[in-house]
């Protein structure tokens, strides 16, 4: 049984999603149904994580054909961790988004949940598949499910979704061209096979372009600065139940995919060729960080502020991956985990704020502390994390990134990281100032305490405190999960 865990981690949410679309639209029933199945999916992923820890690498041959013939799944310790992270974020997102179902989903609930589960399955597939073309299919399912989940929010979500569709499809097509260029030169699609072949070839134009197209495609999916245009609006106008799931995972999985393209496919050749690429990519990342942070500074809508922060965070990880230094890679991957959790908290806080004060503009935040202390506390926790205060995980990931950048002499990246921390300080100062020190007393009589807001605030706070655990245990986590997969 245990050798089937890896396939079950993908198939289980998929099957549940397909069955969910046949369920009757009864809210309580569906809530319990979804919760139970996501909990079970969590157990499966956790089992996979334990298995990867004991066996270091789990492989699975689909339909019984050995790898180059059939499709192969492969889990390293890190992808085991990501797999569990996906299930866990999905469970929390499910619980956090449940309150918004009534207003935003209505009678379409079974179909909404079906897409939710399909998205989880596609994310799992993205993280576990070891076949370059299968990854494209997974990329497309996750995008299609995301389009549906964002667009049903209505209003401005439609135009945002359309932009997302155009840019997402172009990104996926670039990825497909990259895979095609690799296929015409090597004749295989299996990632391990590709790595083996590429290790001994002369590095010619077709390979450079293959790498280039794969990277451009993934940059579009990651929403790094000049290619970020789709992200802020899409995430801002998405229904809350969607953004809680999509925002923490979508761009991070693109980062993970880029890591795999760089080191699993091109691992053998990239070391000799990375310097010229690195020069450009780290510069791009530094610009991306600064641009994302300044975009965020200009916003007044809490959700949009956080959506723009995602653009900045993508820059951190991009830069870390291309630093040409193992510490940079470790930092980038640790930041990936930390950022997924932090973004989850951010978007939970958005829902909690909306429940507690009835709006999410900066103006609404006035007196949040009095109205929902737990939500305000969660906001502080995640602010500390994003600014990079020890002992939060954000501090350790940034510290690792900065040591990596200094070791490889990329001072512009260091400057961008420090400036971004400063920018985050300003952003969260503006938010927290209003939340804790309102300029005028709010009208107490008009306002009733929201129980849901408090519950969500408590949930956000719990996960936020998990960031401290992540920070205190950062070295253990890096040793256990990240250093084994980063080539030294």
């Amino acid at each position, binding site marked *: 049984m245990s050798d089937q865990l890896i396939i079950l981690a993908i198939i289980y949410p998929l099957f549940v999603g397909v069955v969910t679309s046949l369920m009757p639209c009864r809210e309580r029933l569906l809530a319990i149904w979804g919760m139970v199945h996501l909990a079970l999916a969590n157990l499966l992923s956790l089992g996979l994580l334990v298995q990867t820890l004991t066996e270091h690498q789990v492989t699975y041959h689909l339909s019984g054909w050995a790898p180059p013939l059939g499709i192969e799944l492969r889990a390293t310790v890190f992808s085991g961790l990501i797999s569990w992270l996906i299930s866990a974020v999905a469970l929390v997102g499910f619980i956090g988004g449940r309150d918004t179902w009534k207003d935003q989903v209505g009678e379409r609930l079974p179909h909404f949940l079906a897409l939710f589960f399909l998205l989880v399955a596609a994310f799992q597939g993205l993280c576990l598949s070891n076949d370059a073309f299968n990854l494209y299919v997974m990329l497309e399912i996750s995008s299609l499910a995301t389009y549906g989940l964002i667009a049903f929010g209505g209003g*401005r979500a439609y135009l945002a979704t359309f932009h997302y*569709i*155009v840019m997402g*499809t172009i990104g996926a097509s670039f990825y497909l061209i990259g895979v095609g260029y690799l296929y015409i030169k090597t004749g295989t699609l299996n990632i391990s096979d590709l790595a083996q072949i590429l290790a001994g070839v002369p590095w010619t134009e077709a390979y450079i372009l293959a790498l280039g197209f794969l990277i451009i495609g993934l940059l579009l999916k990651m929403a790094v600065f000049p290619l970020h245009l789709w992200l802020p609006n899409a995430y801002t106008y998405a229904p809350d139940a969607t953004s809680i799931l999509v925002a923490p995972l979508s761009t991070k999985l693109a980062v993970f995919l880029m890591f795999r393209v760089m080191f699993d496919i091109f691992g053998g050749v990239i070391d000799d060729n990375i310097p010229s690429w690195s020069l450009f990519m780290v510069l791009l990342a530094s610009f991306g960080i600064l641009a994302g942070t300044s975009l965020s500074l200009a916003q007044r809508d809490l959700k949009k502020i956080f959506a723009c922060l995602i653009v900045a965070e993508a820059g951190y990880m991009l830069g870390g991956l291309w630093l040409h230094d193992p510490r940079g890679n470790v930092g980038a991957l640790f930041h990936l985990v930390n950022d997924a959790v932090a973004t989850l908290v951010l978007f939970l806080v958005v829902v909690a704020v909306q429940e507690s004060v009835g709006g999410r503009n900066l103006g609404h935040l006035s007196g949040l502390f009095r109205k929902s202390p737990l939500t305000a506390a969660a906001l502080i926790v995640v602010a500390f994390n994003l600014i990079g205060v020890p002992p939060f995980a954000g501090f350790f990931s940034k510290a690792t990134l900065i040591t990596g950048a200094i070791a490889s002499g990329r001072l512009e990246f260091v400057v961008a990281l420090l400036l971004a921390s400063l920018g985050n300080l300003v952003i969260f100062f503006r938010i927290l100032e209003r939340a804790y020190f309102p300029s005028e007393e709010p009208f107490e009589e008009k306002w009733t305490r929201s129980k849901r807001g408090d519950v969500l605030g408590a949930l956000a706070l719990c996960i936020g405190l998990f960031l401290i655990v992540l920070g205190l245990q950062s070295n253990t986590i890096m040793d256990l999960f990240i250093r084994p997969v980063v080539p030294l």
Partner: protein
Amino acid sequence: MSLIQSGFIYWFFVVLLMIGMYGAVGKDNLVKKLIGLSIFQTAIILFYVSIGFKNGPATIPILQGGHGEPIKDIAAASYFNPVPHVLMLTAIVVGVATVGVALAVIQRLYAEYGTLEENEILDKIANS
């Protein structure tokens, strides 16, 4: 001499890709953008399909005489490479699925703003 069954097809694929890219990015009308996207995707499909072609005695990847007695001694050089064809079946279906979702979004946009031109929609958003 044949143009389709020669390296010239790469030029053709690149030209179609450029047309599609221009349509998808440069056009203002949402449906036109989508048409550009479709052309873009067919160009990629053409590229993959051209990978599978083989000169010489090769023919389509359906074994000859499959209805009768078991076939023996199949030479790889006598059939086109079927792998890119398999991949492109998937890509075509994915493409049409994307187009369907995008068209649904377009209908909603039209219901919301009463136009299909992107700049007019942006104007209406800015004015509201």
